[in-house]
């Protein structure tokens, strides 16, 4: 225990320190003309290129864009919990819908010309350089000699795209719902590691684990642009990943926020998305990059597997198919 003389000094120091901290916190929360973009991590490089262009243009003059990046679900939850955001750009629609449900994003957020989406991608199979295992499509993932890596769809919202792709591809091939679930169970038996999120999955794949990484086309392209040795295969049947963006209803600077989103949807900005590996949402820009982004014959969307609401509750809830599969039970046992 402290002796009383020193104790007095300690108390005084503690009180001074506490008031300094409180004072600093109060000073930092001042408002200005900026807007805050809260986004998931993957498109960071795109935004870092587009934001200076916005600030140089007429619409964005004098507008500072503050940026926060993190996993999509985490970003959505911190906005829900009260982080001041003007624009939210997330990996999947349910993360925006969480904010719509809380009244933080207008219900008509998807009313724009691109239905609320700022970029697209597809689910691909990333393989080792030169594709030594000769992976062509989803059926190869069931082979005994193939080890698959995919993030855990229960800890990563983004990984739910992968499950939707694998399941939907089976339906697209004319298989039944039950056969598609059997496929998922067999495929996940080949999954030795389910990292927390797609970033970690890529890191673990890079460290030499696994033969196939279920990934997004844009991530594979970014990895290649960064000089990493990775190839990828676009299966004939795969899902169109659609990344939503929205202006929040509580935005302190809605004009600037909307101008920013419009800026992201101009052909030149969409061209930057394309250069960084994302499929543009504007058909004209997509056509210009048709060579880089071939359209798979069996391309489908989340609506083809029931839409996000039903798909998520059927597959990822505590009594959903995925928990059954992980537990080694027949899918549907817990329903």
């Amino acid at each position, binding site marked *: *225990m*402290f*002796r*009383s*003389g020193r*104790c*007095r000094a*300690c*108390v005084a120091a*503690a*009180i001074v320190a506490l008031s300094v901290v409180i004072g600093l916190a109060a000073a930092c929360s001042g408002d200005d003309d900026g807007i805050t973009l809260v986004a998931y991590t993957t498109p960071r490089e795109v935004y870092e290129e587009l934001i200076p262009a916005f600030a140089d243009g007429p619409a964005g003059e004098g507008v500072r864009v503050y940026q926060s990046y993190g996993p999509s*679900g985490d970003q959505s*939850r911190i906005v829900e919990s009260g982080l001041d955001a003007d624009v939210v750009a997330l990996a999947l629609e349910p993360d925006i819908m*969480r904010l719509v449900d809380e009244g933080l994003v207008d219900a008509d957020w998807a009313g724009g010309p691109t239905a609320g989406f700022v970029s697209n991608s597809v689910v691909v199979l990333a393989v080792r350089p030169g594709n030594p295992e000769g992976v062509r499509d989803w059926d190869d993932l069931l082979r005994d000699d193939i080890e698959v890596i995919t993030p*855990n769809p*229960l*800890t*990563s*919202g983004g990984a739910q795209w992968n499950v939707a792709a694998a399941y939907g591809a089976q339906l697209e091939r004319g298989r039944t719902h039950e056969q598609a679930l059997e496929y998922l169970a067999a495929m996940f038996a080949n*999954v*030795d*590691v*389910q*990292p*927390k999120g797609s970033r*970690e999955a890529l*890191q*673990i794949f890079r*460290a*030499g*684990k696994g033969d196939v990484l279920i990934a997004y086309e844009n991530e594979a392209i970014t990895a290649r642009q960064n000089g990493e040795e990775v190839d990828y295969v676009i299966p004939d049947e795969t899902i169109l990943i659609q990344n939503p963006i929205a202006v929040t209803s509580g935005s302190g600077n809605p004009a600037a926020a909307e101008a920013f989103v419009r800026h992201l949807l101009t052909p030149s900005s969409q061209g930057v998305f394309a250069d960084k590996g994302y499929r543009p949402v504007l058909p004209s820009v997509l056509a210009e990059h048709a060579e880089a982004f071939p359209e798979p014959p069996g391309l489908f969307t989340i609506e083809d597997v029931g839409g996000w609401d039903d798909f998520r509750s059927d597959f*990822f*809830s*505590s009594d959903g198919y995925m*928990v059954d599969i*992980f*537990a*080694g039970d027949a899918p549907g046992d817990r329903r």
Partner: protein
Amino acid sequence: MSTDVVTPRPPRRSGRLIAPVGIGVAVMYMSIIVLIPMAALMGGAFDEGWAGFWDAITSDQAIAAVLLTVKLSLVVMLINAVMGTIIAWVLVRDRFVGRGFVNSLIDLPFALPTIVAGLTLLALYGPDGPVGINVAFTEAGIVLALLLVTMPFVVRSVQPVLLELDRDMEQAAASLGAGPLTIFRRIIFPNLMPAIIGGSGLAFSRALGEFGSLVLISGNIPFQDQMASFYIYSLIESGDRTAAAAVSVLLLTLSLAALLLLSALERWTSRHAR
């Protein structure tokens, strides 16, 4: 810690005001930092009443994750108890070049961001590691990561006790004909026991809740090698905050129980040793 009791001096006049202020500041600080958040967590865990709490902590996935976590944390605790004591012994009793340097390295795991710890372990002991040992995505890998982040606890609690240990006792024992093993077993070990137990308890508690260092080294497969903290994260991701809080409260309870049990053991051994 209950071991460092200093006999209070009789209060002076000027000290009379300070004691209540000191207690007030300590309680206020603890409330803001620990007690109120914990109370909020408890409240969150019982949002859906006892039934909801019970369902959350008895789901198949929760049981599998918590059992694995407790099992591996116990392994980590035991290894720490032995190895931490040896390291403390070497640092205090042996003279070698670079001792001061090694001593300052002990706290490094606390300074290292845990995700970096995981990344480093993956690079070293992963599939393409230079040493040719691959423990990534196995229970051994998880234990390795937990050992790394919990290493300082036992070392740092045993070290000061060893420093203060009266060497006259050992010399007296030796002069009475006791061999080194007997001296260790009868003199040194009983004196170190409370510190070893205390440090191990902290290591166990820390291991129970560890997240960051496991992100890149654990397989995160439900029912197989998913740790409790990852299961909690998945509950948060799926929007089930009540269940997430419930499983967190279960972990906290286990950790508290372990600490209480160990401090009882600590008191018992220190009484028994004299």
